[in-house]
């Protein structure tokens, strides 16, 4: 059927197209079947009820709202392992001894400036002649001595930003609370697939020759066809990568010597840097409010 032309001017029928008509003066042909729904000005789905997009920094912040600790953590040095006996029950708990050495808040990361809240913390001491000028400027601008180790600890909001220059000691953590520890595992060097990924290897005998610990097939038998899938588990450098151990209980703290004893093991060799922060999978420790308040009060003195 040939399309019918309308009898009257089309601009009245289709107001949305009026400007087109007026600007270009192209005669608009009307077809017999008209759409009931009004055309959408935007081809993307938008509206007030739609959920927030998941790939924006704002969405990431909202997503992490419940899993970000309220207060900052501390940088510790692993000193070794021992065991703690409970004198009443006689229970023995394997434990790791950590030491905090001159842990101090260096600077802050704020939502306005950096897009998230975090506390930059440093520990130890480094001779100024071994520090780059850029870092020296950073330290001197914040009135902090040069630090050997610098790490950031994310916090949920600005309430968790400890004042700059505040010293974090072992009493920052309460006995009995849970912490997460983050440290680099012991480096194992370049390792094969059996040690690195737990591959089964091949037979000792049955005609296997010189390939007892080899990788085996990497592409066709695994669905790759003529290529190797990205991320294929292969030999390579093993260890010396960050490992988080969650929910370690703080058994004892000794603020005088900066010693924290936490239950269980922590990745890495003796002397490695361990970052500990309130466990995100346990209730936040009860002290935090009091501690933050008291710390802000006490911090007024050293900075002044």
């Amino acid at each position: 059927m040939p399309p019918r032309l309308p009898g009257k001017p089309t601009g009245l029928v289709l107001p949305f197209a009026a400007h087109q008509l007026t600007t270009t003066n192209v005669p608009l042909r009307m077809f017999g079947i008209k759409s009931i729904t009004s055309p959408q000005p935007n081809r993307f789905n938008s509206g007030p009820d739609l959920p927030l997009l998941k790939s924006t920094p704002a969405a990431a912040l909202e997503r992490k709202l419940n899993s970000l600790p309220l207060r900052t953590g501390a940088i510790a040095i692993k000193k070794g392992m021992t065991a703690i006996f409970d004198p009443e029950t006689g229970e023995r708990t394997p434990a790791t001894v950590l030491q905090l050495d001159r842990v101090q808040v260096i600077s802050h990361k704020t939502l306005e400036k950096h897009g998230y809240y975090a506390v930059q913390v440093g520990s130890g001491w480094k001779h100024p002649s071994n520090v780059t000028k850029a870092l020296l400027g950073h330290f001197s601008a914040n009135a902090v001595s040069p630090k050997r180790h610098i790490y950031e600890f994310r916090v949920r909001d600005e309430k968790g930003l400890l004042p700059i220059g505040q010293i974090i000691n072992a009493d920052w953590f309460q006995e009995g609370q849970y912490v997460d520890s983050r440290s680099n595992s012991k480096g194992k060097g370049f390792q094969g697939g059996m040690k690195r990924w737990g591959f089964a290897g091949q037979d000792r005998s049955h005609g296997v020759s010189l390939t007892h610990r080899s990788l085996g097939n990497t592409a066709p038998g695994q669905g790759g066809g003529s290529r190797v899938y990205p991320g294929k588990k292969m030999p390579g450098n093993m260890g010396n990568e960050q490992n988080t151990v969650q929910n370690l209980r703080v058994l004892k703290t000794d603020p005088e010597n900066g010693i924290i004893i936490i239950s269980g093991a922590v990745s890495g060799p003796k002397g490695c840097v361990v970052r500990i922060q309130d466990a995100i999978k346990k209730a936040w420790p009860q002290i935090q409010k009091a501690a933050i308040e008291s710390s802000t009060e006490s911090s007024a003195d050293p900075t002044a």
Partner: protein
Amino acid sequence: MIQLKTLLNCIDNSGAAVVECVNVLKKKRAGTVGDRIVVVVQRQRNFDTGIGVSAANKVRRGDIRHAVIVRVKKEMRRPDGSYLKFDDNACVLINKSGDPIGTRMSG
């Protein structure tokens, strides 16, 4: 560490001498002291009582029975960090309701 095919000494007077584990109950791992297992009687005990073997023995070779492990070679850890281990694996036969089949235990 009692698992499939482990041979255990039976230390009661039910008549079994050596039994073989065929299953560890309510566990996906190896059994230890106190665990219930299913066993097959492999060797009977000979009592020098004058009575016939069949009369004294409540179980026979090839019987499938439940048992409780009482000694294991694998060391057991205590909460205070001490370990205890025995030189053999041993068990006591029980019936399905949990009562011992034998009347005495030796050791």
